[in-house]
């Protein structure tokens, strides 16, 4: 059967349209959404709407002013909860309850406590975690809630057995424990911003923070919002190289799966993005755990190349702050130093909902090069803006920002359209889970570690006065050279840009705003990058365009700014002497169908774990048999052959280097010349990158990072077999249940099941 093609008309009103016309359009959008809703609820028939002249025979809303904002636009039929595109997706606009933008201070991230683990645990030096973590999953039994089927099940949700045991647990024994819960929203009585109130816009940490996007908005219910420790602001973990962390994650979500406020899943799996760890600690999408269980994630925090480069740890640039101004040298390649990670839920099929619901935090990794101290002048420390009081990890002038769009219902409770598999857009911009806040700064340099924590929205950041920012890192990796920009590139979902803004150019009492220039019409890709003046005009139909964060320049520096933005920062690893073992190319078939089917499995296909949803069931296992060899490097070209989508492709393992865009090295912008872990292909575009395969090669897995798209349920293990010939080996797929994890063998053919 062939269906008549949908008209792909431009669903966009010029930003230069008269203001009155734009207001009409805004109203029309609202009206239209209501009518569509009434229709979809069966409260009125299509025939009645046609009789009323409200829709045409083809199902389009009639070109009537006040109803159809674009007059000629087609009814956009992406998947999902409505038959028209709306922002927010599938819902009316989020009410603001009279709250104004830029009237609340932005809370800094909430720093999670680090509990030191004694080198020798005994009666006088107890382990901070009870029970003490074990290499293989702790299978001690406990009673299971009747809402989860009852009976008994293991206290730890990690799959049992050797495959899921922490690799090299004895070589990298955890030295720091970080213990968190996942639970419903509640007030935060233990907020630790890591800085004095004067550096946190005057927020008094002693006063409990309610789970609100703004003090004037309703508190989120314990069903609507689920976060780490159940509180806001988002959490920050501080770690350093050579100091393995044991991240114990307790699931305290409701046992009754229906108690989810309309979206989100109470089973979770936490991914440390882009940790260079073993797969058992990677938050594998199918290795989720249940309410009342915990999961121990072991993050060794090693430099890539530790088994082959600088193995005797003689280079001080490959180092970690020693706590007293010096450097503890560690093995590995110093040019692989990473700085700004994030961690988030990666639940099979529910990643987007759960991350949107609040399951996202950030992880700053400190090193001899990037130690979070701007004063130590040892010839290694890059002295980026941070502070001076502590040996490492000063947050005074080193600020984590999580930008994310949200939407809420008429009660002010978070809303998500669970049937939109194309991408969900909110209509409210938040920073650190607060609605359009302000942030007080001194007249000096600040570092901002910016994470796009949206489900489907790309953001493109500029300052309202068009003044420059210095990008120093991409995906949390310091660039070879800092790049001065007046507009950052589009920041894809899960990407991180670290930038430095020098506020010394402003006078005390002045203000400047961060502005989003990227407009969306749906969750597939940005529809347009606006000019600064267009974005500031307030005329975009995308409510998330425009100012979203206000900087208030409140004082001169309390201490002189001794921070630097040196050039070079961290050069790329030199791969020229490492032969390219193989080149591969992966096509993402970027049209809507391919994407809505499961675009990322077209990516996972290369690893042989995909059946890609049915229409492109090709060649997966062949690629497995041609797997990367341990200790080699390869060159991959990822192509988005369609124009309708953009894909942020996330590759686990090691950071890669982009060699070319659309076939040419000249197309690689300066801010993409470092190491990355998320590759935005852009509609119709391609990225050629090179990667090495080392260290944790004993086991890895990979998956995608478009949070609205489905994840895949299989796991691959990459290992050296007895003969030394490497290959990818599909592992038994874990099937978690509250009563314990069972497995499906990958070679179950099921040919006789019919």
């Amino acid at each position, binding site marked *: *059967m062939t*269906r008549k*093609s*949908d008209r792909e008309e431009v669903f966009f009103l010029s930003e230069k349209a008269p203001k009155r016309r734009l207001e009409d359009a805004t*109203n029309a959008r*609202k*009206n239209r959404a209501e*009518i569509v809703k*009434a229709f979809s*609820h*069966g*409260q009125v028939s299509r025939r009645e709407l046609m009789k009323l002249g409200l829709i045409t025979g083809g199902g389009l809303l009639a070109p009537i*002013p006040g*109803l159809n904002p674009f007059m000629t636009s087609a009814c956009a*039929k992406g*998947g999902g*909860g409505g038959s028209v595109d709306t922002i927010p997706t599938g819902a*009316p606009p989020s009410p603001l309850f009279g709250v104004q933008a830029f009237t609340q201070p932005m809370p800094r991230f909430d720093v999670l406590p680090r509990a030191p683990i004694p080198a020798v645990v005994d009666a006088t030096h107890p382990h901070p975690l009870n029970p003490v973590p074990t290499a293989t999953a702790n299978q001690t039994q406990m009673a299971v809630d009747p809402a*989860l089927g009852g009976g008994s099940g293991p206290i730890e949700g990690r799959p049992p057995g050797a495959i899921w045991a922490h690799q090299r647990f004895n070589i990298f024994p955890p030295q720091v424990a970080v213990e968190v819960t996942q639970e419903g929203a509640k007030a935060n009585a233990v907020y630790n911003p890591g800085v004095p109130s004067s550096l946190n816009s005057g927020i008094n940490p002693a006063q409990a923070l309610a789970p609100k996007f703004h003090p004037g908005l309703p508190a989120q219910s314990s069903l609507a919002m689920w976060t780490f420790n159940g509180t806001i602001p988002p959490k920050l973990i501080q770690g350093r190289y050579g100091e393995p962390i044991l991240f114990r994650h307790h699931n305290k979500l409701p046992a009754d*799966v*229906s108690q*989810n406020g*309309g979206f989100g*899943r109470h089973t979770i799996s936490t991914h440390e993005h882009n940790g260079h760890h073993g797969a058992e600690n990677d938050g594998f999408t199918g290795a989720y755990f249940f309410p009342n269980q915990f999961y121990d994630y072991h993050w060794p925090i090693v430099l890539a190349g530790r088994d082959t480069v600088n193995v005797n740890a003689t280079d001080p640039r490959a180092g970690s702050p020693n706590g007293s101004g010096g450097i503890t040298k560690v093995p590995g390649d110093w040019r692989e130093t990473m700085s700004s990670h994030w961690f988030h839920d990666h639940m099979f*099929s529910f990643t987007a909902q759960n991350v949107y619901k609040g399951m996202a935090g950030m992880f700053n990794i400190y090193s001899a090069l990037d130690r979070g101290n701007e004063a130590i002048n040892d010839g290694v420390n890059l002295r980026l803006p941070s502070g001076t009081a502590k040996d490492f990890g000063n947050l005074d002038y080193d600020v984590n920002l999580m930008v994310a769009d949200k939407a809420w*219902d008429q*009660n002010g409770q*978070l*809303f998500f359209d669970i*049937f939109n598999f194309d991408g969900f857009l909110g209509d409210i911009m938040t920073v650190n889970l607060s609605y359009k806040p302000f942030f007080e700064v001194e007249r000096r340099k600040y570092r901002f570690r910016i994470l796009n924590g949206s489900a489907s929205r790309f953001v493109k950041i500029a300052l309202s006065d068009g003044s420059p920012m210095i990008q120093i890192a991409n995906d949390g990796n310091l660039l070879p050279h800092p790049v001065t920009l007046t507009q950052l590139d589009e920041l894809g979902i899960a990407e991180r840009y670290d930038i430095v803004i020098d506020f010394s150019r402003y006078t005390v009492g002045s203000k400047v705003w961060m502005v989003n220039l990227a407009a969306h019409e749906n969750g597939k890709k940005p529809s347009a990058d606006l000019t600064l003046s267009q974005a500031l005009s307030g005329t975009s139909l995308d409510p998330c365009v425009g100012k979203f964060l206000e900087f208030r320049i409140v004082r001169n520096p309390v201490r002189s700014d001794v921070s630097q933005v040196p050039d070079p920062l961290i050069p790329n690893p030199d791969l020229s002497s490492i032969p390219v073992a193989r080149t591969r190319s992966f096509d993402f078939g970027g*049209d809507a*169908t391919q994407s*809505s*089917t499961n675009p990322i499995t077209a990516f996972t296909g290369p690893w042989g774990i995909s059946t890609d949803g*049915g*229409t*492109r*069931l090709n*060649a997966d*296992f062949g690629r*497995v*048999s041609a797997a990367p060899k341990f200790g080699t490097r390869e060159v991959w070209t990822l192509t988005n052959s369609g124009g309708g989508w953009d894909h942020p492709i996330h590759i686990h393992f090691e950071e890669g280097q982009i060699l070319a865009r659309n076939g040419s090295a000249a197309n690689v912008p300066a801010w993409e010349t470092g190491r990355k872990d998320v590759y935005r292909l852009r509609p119709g575009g391609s990225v050629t990158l090179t990667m090495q395969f080392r260290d944790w090669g004993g086991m890895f897995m990979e998956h995608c990072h478009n949070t609205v798209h*489905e994840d895949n*349920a299989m796991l691959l293990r990459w290992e050296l077999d007895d003969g030394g010939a490497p290959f990818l*080996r*599909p*592992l038994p797929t874990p*099937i978690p249940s*509250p009563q314990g*994890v*069972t*497995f*499906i*063998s990958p*070679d*179950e*053919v*099921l040919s006789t*099941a*019919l």
Partner: protein
Amino acid sequence: MKRNQLLRLSAAVLFMGGLLSGLDSTAYDNTRWGAGYFPNVELTTQDGTKVHFYDDLIKGKMVVIELIYTRCVDACPLETARLAQVQRMLGDRVGKEIFFYSISIDPEQDTPKVLKEYAEKYHAGPGWLFLTGKKDDIDLISQKLGLYAPPNDRNRDGHTPAVVIGNEVTGQWMRNSATDNPRFLAILIGDWMNSWKNRQAETPKSYADASVLKIADKGQYIFATHCAACHTIGHGDKIGPDLRGVTSLRDRAWLARFIARPDQMIAEGDPVATELFKKYKQVNMPDLRLADEDIHALIDYMQNQTETAAPEPASGAHP
């Protein structure tokens, strides 16, 4: 919203361009994905029974929904064959607590009679309805379920080869590949969506019993993932023929071409393809878009299996 309210509101929209207001019905519980969300449009089953989508098919149930059309030459046949496997694994729970729906996106062609024949071809059991209805209504369902995709060159029929799995009572809905491992799908539907309250009779293996994939045979893997829903090698005919000996029965080039473009060969009137099409109840062999090297690996595997397999009766294994 009542109808007369809408009339009044429509008038307001038309003549005043005003805002509709006070229509919000979003609650922050799972009633959000219930009567207020799913269209209650009328559909017709393969037996000619009229049903309402929400009231009769969704409300209070666990459901598995796929969109198909009987003339499909792409993924639908494999989807449906996979779901038939899943249905067998779920046993008599299908029809009692779990319901399967295959909704035609080609309703003019797919009359109840056509759908009934289609259901029989795939050995669909009780509790699995094949539905047709008005095109607009089905489009609306498809959009509401997030399964709609506009047709284009790559995707000739605008059809998403995915299943939506849901539990209306708990408000849990997810989409999954329709061609995934059927055991995995059965566990998702039977256990996972139901919070382990009514466990599968057959549980998966323990860690000790589960194996890693030992044989790196590409052909075997492709056969398992692409062919085994409809074919066996030496275990008798299923939806399609037993493929034991097929490599000696057919010329290799013919086999390769048939695997690559079965629809085209039938359309061209290839005598063998046409005969097979008739013999196997006119079930379309799906065009699975395998690459040439995959097809040859598959043929090698079938040949190898034929040679190594102990002789078995070529029929009689049919359930």
